[in-house]
């Protein structure tokens, strides 16, 4: 029962070449996504960031691009939009990766995809670690049902559990791309394993287990007071359910802790690269900055930041103020081309104001985190819901993306 994952990090032995993070060296250039995907040393890419920033799309686009460039890829998604899921063949929810059709395999690569089934993954962990009889006892306990279907950290924990399983399997994959759950805070994802294992290892649980194990001297007066209070508030049934659950779960504790430690080490390993995803909005950028710092503190390998839905200035020489005053002058003209151009200048002025606001947010991030490579992805007019859309995002993520994007406002 020695330390939790974070108290026993493995010794640092990797090179610092791929590391970004606040502790890195000189200022970074743009994030070179193709180099990251082409590097055979990259075995795991974890995409993380706050909700609604396009993490799932980014993960899928990275996975597809890597596959079409010759990697054998498995992508683990959490909650893809329906049409994107369908286009990737994610219609069967059997919690195992399935090959994605219509991937260009001319470079020798392949793409498998799966959608995480949180409860099923948890059930499988229980089944793998307990006797059939004990597993049955656990799976039907109301506290297990609550824990496995809605505990705030379960989805995060199970995503990491599944990652560990996929990485351990010999299915010929040489790259696993994993999306992370839309946590209220991106940090839940790093904390979940520890939170769950500390919960299951807590003092209260120990006390609940004590009567089942025998030594009555552990039943202090204080504990009697506590159980009395719980019975009074929740009813006696609850405490006995908890006790049954905890007793049955006890045999799994060691296994859980070991797995949490192994997953944590895997995330820190040389072959892992974290890609933080954000949108150019204050909340998402703040969350991204926090995440970058946290990854550094936990000694996790950060590849860089992807900023989705960026509005770049299309006519850089024309400021919002110039465009607005030009629009004023043209609006009163009798010439319909002048009037129309005046309206176009209004569109441009609005876009410039957005671009300036976003640039300010991105600059602030760049100056406070100079070592973190960043790649902007322009805002696209519609949602991405097919492989062609993912390929387009893939091009935008890399140097190919400079040609032909329609600017949207």
């Amino acid at each position: 029962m020695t330390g939790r994952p974070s108290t026993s990090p493995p010794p640092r032995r990797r090179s610092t070449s791929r590391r970004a993070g606040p502790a890195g060296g000189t200022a970074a250039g743009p994030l070179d996504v193709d180099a990251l995907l082409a590097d055979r040393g990259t075995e795991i890419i974890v995409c993380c960031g706050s909700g609604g920033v396009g993490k799932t799309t980014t993960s899928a686009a990275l996975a597809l691009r890597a596959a079409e460039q010759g990697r054998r890829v498995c992508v683990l998604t959490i909650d893809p939009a329906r049409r994107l899921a369908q286009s990737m063949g994610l219609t069967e929810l059997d919690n195992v990766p399935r090959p994605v059709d219509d991937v260009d395999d001319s470079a020798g690569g392949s793409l498998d995809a799966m959608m995480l089934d949180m409860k099923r993954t948890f059930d499988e962990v229980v089944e793998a670690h307990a006797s059939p009889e004990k597993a049955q006892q656990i799976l039907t306990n109301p506290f297990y049902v609550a824990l496995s279907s809605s505990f705030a950290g379960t989805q995060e924990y199970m995503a990491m559990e599944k990652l560990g399983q996929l990485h351990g399997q010999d299915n010929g994959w040489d790259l696993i791309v994993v999306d992370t759950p839309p946590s209220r805070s991106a940090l839940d994802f790093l904390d979940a394993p520890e939170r769950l294992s500390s919960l299951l290892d807590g003092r209260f649980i120990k006390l609940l287990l004590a009567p089942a194990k025998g030594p009555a001297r552990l039943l202090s007066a204080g504990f009697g007071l506590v159980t009395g209070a719980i019975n009074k508030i929740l009813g006696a049934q609850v405490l006995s359910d908890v006790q049954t659950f905890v007793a049955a779960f006890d045999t799994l504790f060691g296994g859980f802790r070991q797995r949490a430690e192994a997953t944590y080490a895997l995330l820190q390993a040389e072959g892992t690269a974290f890609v933080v995803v954000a949108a150019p909005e204050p909340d998402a950028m703040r969350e991204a900055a926090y995440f970058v710092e946290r990854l550094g503190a936990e000694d996790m390998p950060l590849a860089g930041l992807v900023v989705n839905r960026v509005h770049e200035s299309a006519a850089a020489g024309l400021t919002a103020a110039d465009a607005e005053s030009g629009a004023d002058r043209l609006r009163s003209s009798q010439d319909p081309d002048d009037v129309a151009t005046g309206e176009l200048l209004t569109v441009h002025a609005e876009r410039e104001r957005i671009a300036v606001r976003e640039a300010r947010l991105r600059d602030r991030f760049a100056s406070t985190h100079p070592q973190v490579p960043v790649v902007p992805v322009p805002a696209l007019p519609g949602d991405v819901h097919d492989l062609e859309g993912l390929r387009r995002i893939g091009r935008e993520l890399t140097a190919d993306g400079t040609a032909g994007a329609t600017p949207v406002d």
Partner: protein
Amino acid sequence: MASWTPLHVVTGKGGTGKTTVAAALAIALAGRGQRVLLCEVEGRQGIAQLFDVPPLPYEERRVSTGLDGGEVFALAIDPEAALLEYLQMFYRLGRAGKALDKFGVIDFATTIAPGVRDVLLTGKVYEAARRTGDTGYDAIVMDAPPTGRITRFLNVNAEVAGLAKVGPVRRQADSIMEMMRAPSTQVHLVSVLEEMPVQETLDGIAELRAANLPVGRIVLNLVRPALLSPATAEALTSGTLDDGAVAAALGRASLPTAAADALVGEGLGHLERLTLQDTQRRIVDAQDTPAVELPALPDGVDLGAVFDLAQRLRDALVRADA
């Protein structure tokens, strides 16, 4: 039987501006002489950031005036503090309450049994909604969990049913459910006019209805206004307004003619975005939950913008009620 203060639950997909809309609604509801409580339940301190005040404690604090001189109070509900308060209020546990904390029971109860945590979070709102007199409110706005989790969050009864079959927590859950399903409660869903958020919103409405929870309005946030007249849109799409024509007009206005190409591209992009918005707007209009629209503000959201949104929200709601 019981009567409650009107409760507005604001949910929405991540990135749609749920907290901003909740704050704007609270400001809009705080008319002259009225007190409105704005509460958050996810520990994000989003309200404090928006109003530019230090992190909120577990305590009702005045954070803003309303539109016509009313008052907006804010509260960040913390499940552990709520549990201790609850135990103190209903059981006068004293020493046992402290012991519960010491043995990690509070942590355990609020973590392992999510239904219990939600009862505590919504229970605090329930307590505020029952208050009358000087500490009572004219309306309560809750910045709630996202659309994907909202029904589960509000439907505490079903959540604790499997865990606590009898006892005070169960009774508390029953009372909360009565309030959540009463006509005084409305669940509003914030969305943007894009495919995935609209789909998620409609799914959320179906789930709320299935659980007998009252759906209020869809708030379509970040809507892009149409900046081009129909004539210009037509000229642009048909190609009669081309780079050359725009360059000539720019020249007459003493602006760099080299920008023409980019301006035409931006104009077409703008039209494409509006077309996609219209497609989603038709989907929203075709269902029976009324929607209100709030515009995207190019300079982003600061406190002034929240007041601007509050005014628009009130105008829209007054218009709809008239």
